[in-house]
């Protein structure tokens, strides 16, 4: 039996949650005031995911960097692998919001897309 302690992010209450786990299976969640805390805790201990946002270098644009994000959430333990790919990437202007900058980042199957427009300068 193993215990995990979390803070629920569902609302400003920030309930302190305790999750009882056995061999990777959730046995119980306690400390939550409402159902959302239970759902959050189960997802967070079995499959935590995050959206990663950063910037990528641009060549020939009216700005030196373009802001970007993973098109959907990626496993939490892949955050730094995703950042490594982002920091090695260079893209060419023009870029539009939604342009795919890195397909399948760090083998997650998720792409990194631009979150702002960059115009080309000659």
């Amino acid at each position: 039996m193993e215990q995990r302690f979390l803070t629920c992010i569902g609302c400003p209450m920030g309930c302190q949650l305790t999750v009882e786990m056995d061999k990777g299976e959730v046995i119980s969640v306690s400390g939550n005031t409402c159902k959302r805390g239970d759902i959050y805790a189960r997802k967070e201990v079995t499959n935590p995911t995050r959206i990663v946002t950063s910037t990528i270098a641009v060549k020939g644009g009216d700005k030196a960097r373009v802001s970007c994000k993973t098109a959907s959430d990626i496993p939490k333990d892949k955050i730094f692998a995703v950042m490594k790919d982002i920091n090695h990437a260079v893209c060419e202007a023009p870029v539009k919001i939604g342009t795919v900058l890195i397909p399948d980042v760090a083998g997650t199957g998720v792409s990194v897309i631009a979150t702002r427009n960059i115009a080309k300068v000659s």
Partner: protein
Amino acid sequence: MKSIDIVIVGGGPAGLAAAVAARKAGCDSILILERDGELGGILNQCIHNGFGLHTFKEELTGPEYAGRFIDQAMELNIDYKLNTMVMDISRDKVVTAMNRTDGMFQIQAKAVILAMGCRERPRGALNIPGYRPAGIFSAGTAQRLVNIEGYMPGREVVILGSGDIGLIMARRMTLEGAKVKVVAELMPYSGGLKRNIVQCLDDYGIPLKLSHTVVDIEGKEHITAVTIAEVGPDRKPIPGTEERYTCDTLLLSCGLIPENELSQSAGVEMSRITSGPVVNESLETNIPGVFACGNVLHVHDLVDYVSEEAARAGQNAVKYVKGELGTVSDSTKGRINLVATDGVRYTVPSTIDPDRMEENLTVRFRVGDVYKDSYVSVYFGDERVQHRKRQILAPGEMEQIIVKKQDLLARPDMDTITIKIEKD
């Protein structure tokens, strides 16, 4: 002198939403003046996600949220001037501005919308004597350096203040390879959102020390270490609790303050609590035809509320220009004062003229402390009309109540509405 119906000062989310709403309400003479080189305001440097859940039902990053409003403004052919600094607004609404191509110029506006946003509290927050070595930045400056310029201010970081910008930057710098050693917060609670504490600090094992402050900074040319200590209830450091952290960067995240030099010189009446203008139900200041919205009015944490509030300012400005807003009676008769007391710090608006209000008016406010299992109560005169139980109320979250026009018209003699926090 050139004449324009509505001049909007600031092209951030507030200015953009006001312009879009004013155009949709039928005004064809609108000009946005923005001192920066692009529209979008502070959102351009807020590259993290978490914007627009209310407005667009999806989680956008700051630039994407700004992008949606910029697109709307472009589709509606709204005029704007970039790199243009507004220098002065006179009581009779002559706007003086300056840029490189036009030099200094003046515009006679029929209505003005103040949307200048806010800036970070100055370093004075760092209440320790001595001179300042290099390596000390406000969190927002660091955000601009990292996200816009692509420049990392340092590798070993200590953050003072746990406002959202500080939390966001703790994660941002960690992702870029820096070691964020600690976030120290003077208050016994964080002003930041729970979600940011979990996803920006807990995710990366960054400790948050509540009731702590910086008591010493080392380094001659460049910062080399800081010492933090626990503070007692009097917020004075407790001897013997000092901890030293070597670092090359200290970020200060000590809150935001509305940017109102322009409003003040125009003669706009200011609130000492919000540091923003005092406004009536129409978001109009004491100068008829001068409106305020967004962070220049009071600091918002959700941009969705900024957009909604700004749209109302835009619509009201159009009514004013068309002469449909109705004049404010010179006597206080018919005007209801909103009183914030017992834990409620302020309300926006401060007064309501029932004849000029919409059917349902949103009144926003903040509390001054953390309250658990308490009630938000609204009194019309002495009569309690709303009494809503809340599990938690915190200074970091803006609250709201709705006031109905019919309820006010039914009470012609009422002159105050009181909002307070009650235990039962």
